[in-house]
C-alpha cells in the first residue's frame, strides 16, 4: 500500500506501543519517531484520511490495510471476542497497579485453560497486543509463578515463538518440565 509522497507517519512516546504497531506494517511504509514528551497515545498520520489515534484503533486499521483481516476475527462473534481482549489490554493491563497483576494473571489463566489463543483456536491481533502488554509482567515472574499460571505461560510461549511476533523483546525462558509439583504434600 502506498501513501504517496509523504508516507505514513506514526508518533508515539511509548516504545512498547510502537513495537506493537510495527508488527502489522505488512508492506505499509511507516516512519516511526519518538516525541520527547511522555505521550502515551500513539497517533497515525495518513495522507489518505484524517489521523488516527489509539493503539487498538491504529493496529486494527493497519491489519486491515495489510489485507490480514483474518487477524481481527472471522465472524461477528469472533471479532467481538478479539476486540474484547484488545480493550482489556488497553484498559486493564496497561498502567495496571502492582496489586492488579495477580488478578490479571489469575483471570487469564482460568480463561486460557481450554484455549490455544485468546480468541479460541486461531491466532489474532489480540494475542500480539496482549503479548506486548504483558511481556514486562511475565519477564519478572519466578519459575514457581510461571508454573502457577501455567496456561498463561503456555500461551505466552506459544505467542513469542509465533514467527515475526517477538521482534526486539527478549525471549522469556519457559521450562518444559515442572519443577515445583509439591502443593499436595
Amino acid at each position, binding site marked *: 500500500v502506498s501513501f504517496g*509522497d*509523504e*508516507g505514513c*507517519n506514526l*508518533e508515539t*512516546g511509548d516504545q512498547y506501543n510502537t513495537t506493537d504497531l510495527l508488527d502489522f506494517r505488512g508492506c505499509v*511504509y*511507516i*516512519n516511526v*519517531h*519518538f*516525541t*520527547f*514528551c*511522555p*505521550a*502515551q*497515545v500513539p*497517533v497515525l*498520520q495518513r495522507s489518505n*484520511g*484524517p*489521523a*488516527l*489515534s*489509539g493503539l*487498538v*484503533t491504529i493496529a*486494527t*486499521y493497519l491489519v486491515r490495510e495489510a489485507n490480514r483481516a483474518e487477524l481481527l476475527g472471522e465472524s*461477528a*462473534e469472533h*471479532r*467481538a471476542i478479539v*476486540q*474484547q481482549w484488545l*480493550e*482489556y489490554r*488497553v*484498559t486493564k493491563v*496497561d*498502567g495496571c497497579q502492582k496489586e492488579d497483576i495477580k*488478578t490479571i494473571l*489469575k*483471570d487469564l489463566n*482460568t480463561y486460557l485453560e481450554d484455549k*490455544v489463543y485468546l480468541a479460541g*483456536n*486461531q*491466532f489474532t491481533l489480540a494475542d500480539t497486543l496482549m503479548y506486548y502488554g504483558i511481556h514486562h509482567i511475565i519477564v519478572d515472574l519466578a519459575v514457581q509463578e510461571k508454573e502457577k499460571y501455567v496456561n498463561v505461560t*503456555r500461551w505466552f510461549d*506459544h505467542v513469542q*515463538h*509465533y*514467527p515475526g511476533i*517477538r521482534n*526486539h523483546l527478549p*525471549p522469556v525462558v*519457559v521450562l*518444559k518440565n515442572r519443577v515445583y509439583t509439591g502443593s499436595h504434600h
Partner: protein
Amino acid sequence: HMKLFVSEGNPHCLKVLAVLKLTGVKCDVQHVNHEEKVVPHLSRPTLPALLLPSGMHLFSANSICRYLGEVSGQPSSDLNNQWLEWEASELQPAVAQALHLAVLQGKGSEASSALQGQLSYLEQSLCKKTTPFLTAEIVSVADVVLWAALYPILSDHGLVLGDQGKVQNWFERVGMLAACESAAQEVLQGKGLKSEALKAYMQKQPAPPHSQAQKRDNQPCNSPEVADGDRVMSEEEILSATVTWAKGLADRPMISDRQHPILPKEGKRNILVTSALPYVNNVPHLGNIIGCVLSADVYARYGRLRGWNVLYVCGTDEYGTATENKAREEGLTPQQICDKYHTVHASIYQWFQVDFDYFGRTTTEKQTQIAQNIFWRLHERGFLLEDTVEQLRCEMCQRFLADRFVEGTCPFCAYPEARGDQCDKCGKLINAVELQEPKCKVCNQTPVVRSSKHLFLDLPKLEAPLEQWLEKSMGSGDWTANAKQITRSWLRDGLKPRCITRDLKWGTPVPHPDFSDKVFYVWFDAPIGYLSITANYTDQWEKWWKNPEQVELYNFMAKDNVPFHSVVFPCSLLGAQDNYSLVNHLVATEYLNYEDTKFSKSRGVGVFGDMAKDTGIPSDVWRFYLLYLRPEGQDSAFSWADMAIKNNSELLNNLGNFINRAGMFVSKFFENCVPAMDLQPEDKRLLALVGWELKQYISLMDKVKIRDSLKCILNISRLGNQYIQVNEPWKKIKGGDTDRQRAGTVTGVSVNIACLLSVMLLPYMPTVCQTIREQLNAPPTVTATMLQGTGNFVCCLPAGHHIGVVSPLFQKLEADQIEDLKKRFGGQQVSTMVVRIYSTWPLIRPFPHQGEKVRALKGQKAEKAVIAVEVDKLLDLKKQLALAEGKNQEPDQTKGTKNTQHAPSPATTAQAVINKADPERAKELTLAVAEQVRWGAEAEN
C-alpha cells in the same frame, strides 16, 4: 440465543441498554445484583456482561456495544473505534474519578475539574466537525457510549462545566433519542448524580487510583495539538527564535583544521575518546562496529564540530591465545596474522568513514615499555600476589590447555565426553584437573597436571580507592545505566584477586625473573593499549594520559567490556599511583542482534564489516541505519526489511525529500538565488519549533544519546515537509505578487532549514553532508554558529545567496534487492535456528501455523491435492525438527548459568567461567589459569 446481564445504577449498563434499544437487536436482558458473578473466568464481579451464542462472554460495555452495532448491520468504522478506545482508556478513568468525588465525597466542583481536560478535547473535536454527531450525520455507537459515560455528570445542572457549548448541544441531541431516554430511566431513574442506585453502585467500587488520574491530568501531551506533532510554543519562545534567526552568521572563524599531534590545550575542553580495541583475529561484525568504533566516531565528530579539542584513538588488540590458534589454523606466524588482520580492520573502518586521529595496534615496543612500567609500579607497591595454580599441560602440543581444549570422563556422572569446564550431561561445573582420563582435544594425548606459579592483581586491596573514585566519576560523568549497574554488581559481589599472567608465548613478556616464560594476561595488557597507541601517535602521550585535571576521558564499548574498564583497568592505574587519567564517561551499548538471532562468524550468520561494502549500499546509509538502531538502553536487532523501510521512509521520503525540495524550489523558481523572506507568524512558529529540536539535539548529544538525537534531525525534516506541504510554494509561485512573495518566504525558510540539517547530520552521514553543503554552497562558518552554546538556528543563507546544483541524495532500496541480500547473509542458518526454537516446546504443537493450516483446510473440505501439499510441508517441518533435535547435542544452556555465578576460588582451580553466548569471546577468555569472569547471567535464547 444471547443474554445480557445488567445491574441497576451501573453507568456502564446504561451504555449497553441504550445501544440495545437503539439497534433493536434481539437479546434477553436479565437484571442482577452488582455482586453477581456472571463471567466464570473473572474473579471479580463484572457487569454488564453479554453471553454469546457460543457460550463465551463479552465483559466490557464498549465491546458489547460495538458487537450489538455490528450484528445490527453497522460495522464499526475507524473513527467509531477511535472514539470507543478514547472513551475506555482516556475518558473512563477521569469519569470514575469525577463520580467518586461527586457521589461519595460530595465534592461536585472538584468533579468537574477532574473531567476538564477530556471535555475540552471533546469540545475541540466537535468544533472541527460539520456533522451533528461524532462520526456521521446519524447517531453511532460511539455517540451513545460517550453520552452514557457522561450522562450522570452532564445531566446534573448543579455542576458548572465551563465553556463547552458544543458538548452541551451534542449531549442534548443524543439524550433526546428514545433509546437513551428510556435506558437512563431504567438504570438511573433519569436522575443522574442524585440517583440512589448510582450511589449504591459507587459504594461497591474500589476507589479510583488517584495517582493515575493525576498523571493523566498533568499530561498535556495527550492533547490533540501535541499528538499531531505540533508542539505548542510560547510567545517568548517564538520571539526569541525570531531574534536568533535575524542575527545571521556570526563573525567567528571557521573551525580550524586538525593539526597533529593534537595535545591538550589550556582553557579548552580536552576530550580523549577511545573505543574498545577490536580483537585482531577476526573480521568485525556490525554489532562490533556500532558498539564501539562507530559510536565513538559520531561523538568525536560532534565534539570537533562543537569546537572541543578532541583526540580519538583506537587500534587492534593483537596478543593472546586466539591469535596463536588462528596462526596455527592459517599456517602463519602470530605476527603475520596480526599484520594481515590489522589491515583488514583498518580498511573496514575506513570504508565506514571512522575518522580516527590514530588507529594503532598493541604489538609494539611502547606497549611493552608501558605495560612493564605499570607492572613494576604495582609490584613495588605491594598490589601483586603470587599463587600456584594446577593446570593440565599437553606435552605433545607443548602447551597448557585451556578448558575448552580438554575432554574427559565426568567425575560426577561418568559421562565420557565432559568438557574441561562443564559436563554436558549432568550440567555440573568441573575443575579441569578433576576430569578422569583427560584428553587433549587437539592431539588426543593424555595431558599431565602441572603446577604453575602465577601473579594476581590484589583487587581487594584496591577496593577502597576504587570505590572512592567510582563514586566521583559516576556522579559527575555520563555513565550509561548498564555501565553503572554492571560495575555495582561486581562491587557488590566483592572483588577477588585476578590473575594477570598466563603461560603463552604471544604476549607482552612479564619482566619479573621468576616469571620469565610467561606473558601478561590479555585483560591486564589490552587496555594499556590505549596508552601505548597514544604513545605511538605522539611522544607527548602523557599530556593526555597523566593529566586528569585537564582531560576528560570517554570510553566507548559494548556492555560485555564494562567490568574491565570500570573495575580491573582502573585498579591497575590506581595501584600504579602515577596520576593517570581515569575514565570520566563510560558509554556502553547493549547488544545488536541479527534479524532474530545473534551475529555468529562460526555459523556464518550476519553481516560482517568487509561485506557491507559489497552490498552496494552506501557507507552513509549503513552508518545511518546502524546509528538509528544503536542499542541504547536495550538490545536491538538488525533486519534487512527494516533497513529498507528506514532508508525508503526516513532517508528518501523524509530527509532527502525535504532537502531536495527546498533546494529545487530555489533553483527552479528563483534562479539559484535565495529569495527574500517576509516572516509571518506561522514561519516564526516553525523557527521556534526547529530551534527547539536543535536544542534537544545538542543536549542529547552532549549526553552521548546518539540514537535519540538522530530523531531530532528527522523531526526537523518532518516539520519542514509539513510546512512545504501546507504552503504549497509550487502553486503560489504561479499566483499574484502576494502569493509569489509567500512562495519566496517558504522556500527561503526551507532552504535554511536544509542548511541547518547539513550541520546536524554531519556526525552521522559525513559524505551526504558534504554533498548538501556543496549543493547549497553553504558558508564555512555555519557549523560554528549553529552549534554554539545551546544551539542557534540563524538565517545562514540570506536573500541573494547563490546555491549550487541540486540533485537527489538517496536512492530507493527495492524489495527484491533486499530479498537477495537477506539470502546472501545467513538465510540458511536463520531458518535452522527457527526450527530449533520450536523444539523447546515439543509437547504443544510444534508447528502451530502449518498444523493449523492443514486442519483448517480439512475443515473447509478443501481439495485433496491442496491439502496434500500442505501436509507434505508439515511433514517436512517435522523432519527438520527431528534432524535439528538429533543434531542438537548441546544441553539446555539455561541450566548451567546460575551455577557459573559461584566459581571456586582461584587458588585451587583452573576454572574459567565463560560467557556461553559468544563463542568468539569465550575462546579468548578461556584460560588454563584461575579466572573468574563473572558475567551477568546471559542465557542464550
